[in-house]
């Protein structure tokens, strides 16, 4: 199985995002860094193998896992039932984010329903677009990357940008965005899950253990601070819940 293969190869191949600061992004050397690569490094260290990172995008990450191109996926993937059918999303989830928007202060949105018929920038294929579009009737204008979307927002091509709340919050701390705010309540708080291929029970159990361990020792909260974002309520809650509970280590 995968675990044996990894040990035999001496490398763990993990699919991460490379265009999602701070979870996974490039440094000028061309290496992928960020919260998720650091988590992947933890896993590799625990197994005592080398780490190989493979950049993935939303449209290919599940295929890669399914084909066996990557052993493990830590790629900001929202835990959803339909995806659980395709890949094995582990319990517990390691992270969570809510959907929110930033908009010009002058736009004066008060509740999500105000977005009805309003052009809202988003990222093509992102999970956050979904509810905004389906339930609140916003017109999603999808771009390929966050820079494009933010630029479009600045240009006034859309009234707001819908994305994950922690990313947006960290943007708002920058001077450039002082004209903007996050006027709405975060909704749709959705957990992110690590994923492995279906049928890899041993590896799945091991990885579940890893996630529990991260929650126990507050690793994720630590990383959030390191990369300069406010710890999300989810990670804090998980840390509180799990601390004191010492998991049985495997592998």
């Amino acid at each position, binding site marked *: 199985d995968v675990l044996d293969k990894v040990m035999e190869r001496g490398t763990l191949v993990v699919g991460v995002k*490379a*265009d*999602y*600061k701070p979870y996974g*992004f*490039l*440094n*000028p*050397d*061309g290496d992928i860094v960020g919260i998720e690569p650091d988590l992947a490094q933890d896993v590799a260290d625990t197994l005592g193998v080398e780490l190989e990172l493979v*950049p*993935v*995008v939303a*449209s*290919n990450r599940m*295929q*890669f896992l399914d*084909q*066996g*191109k990557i052993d493990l996926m830590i790629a900001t993937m929202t835990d959803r039932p339909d995806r659980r059918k395709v890949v094995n999303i582990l319990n517990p989830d390691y992270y969570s984010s809510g959907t929110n928007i930033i908009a010009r202060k002058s736009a004066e949105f008060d509740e999500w329903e105000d977005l009805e018929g309003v052009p809202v920038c988003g990222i093509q294929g992102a999970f956050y677009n979904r509810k905004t579009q389906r339930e609140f009737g916003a017109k999603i204008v999808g771009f*390929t*990357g*966050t*820079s*494009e979307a*933010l*630029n479009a927002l*600045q240009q006034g091509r859309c009234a707001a940008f819908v994305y994950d709340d922690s990313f947006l919050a960290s*943007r708002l701390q*920058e*001077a*450039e965005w002082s004209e903007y705010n996050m006027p709405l309540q975060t909704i749709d708080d959705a957990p992110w899950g690590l994923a492995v291929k279906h049928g890899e029970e041993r590896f799945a159990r091991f990885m579940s253990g890893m996630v529990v361990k991260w929650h126990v020792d507050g690793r994720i909260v630590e990383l959030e601070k390191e990369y300069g974002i406010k710890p999300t309520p989810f990670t804090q809650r998980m840390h509180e819940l799990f601390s004191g509970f010492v998991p049985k280590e495997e592998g």
Partner: protein
Amino acid sequence: MRAAGERLYGTTDLPVLLPPGERLLRRASRERTDGVPRLTLKAWHGAVIAAVVLLAAAAAQAQGAAEARPGVLTALWKWVPLLVEGFLFNIAISFLGMGIGTALGTVLGVMQISLLPPVRAGSWIVTQFFRNAPWLVLLFFCMFLLPFEFRVMGFVVPFPDWVKATLGLSLPVMANVSEIVRGAVQSIPSGQWEAAESLAFSRRQTLVQIILPQCIKRMLPPWMNLYAILTMATVLASVVGVSEVMTLTQRVLSAESRPELLVPFYGFVLLLFFMYCYPIARFTHKLELRYVVKL
């Protein structure tokens, strides 16, 4: 019977293959007496390139001037090595794709002029299909339908993304090369076939000794044009996540998280391509002048 001009010029995918006018003829004869195509990069060509750089930088500075953060050019400079590396990757993909596409396309093109109707029809269908399908869609297909590794006699041959992308790009190249070959062969006057035949050359000998050598000169310009088009199409690989210059640019932009960098970065990518493709285009043009008229 189709008109000769149509046969000669109507069958490639490339717009520049037209009979040269007399002005071109004169220039061509001048170049022929010189013996080499004159690749003149005149001053104004440099001016155009410089203008693009300045435009990009100025636009960026205008946007970034208000910021207290490091200047746009500094930010760009930091990433240049990575982007150039990515661009080299594009060039590598284009070379490989062109190689594969040309090899397959030549075979397909020769099949298109086969004497056997089924072979002719089959290769025609294949050519038309791959010629009419958008590059991007073919790329997606190769990405998702090919396995990431092959097992050959117990050996695991990895099949990385960029190879798949290369294959995906070489499919349309193949179709275009096939058309170029067919067009070139059909543009050779039938008298050449007859003359060779009446000298007792076999069909194979005729093709190899008489027809193809004459075709090569005619195929060179459209072939190089195709190469430039392929090079520009390599950015499509970004859509399927291959780490070429466009993908890297997008990743860099999200790493920088500074929307005002968008314009200079894309400007820089434009510049990279222009600096690579423009000399090729000039050279192709020279070749065209030399060869389309010579025969």
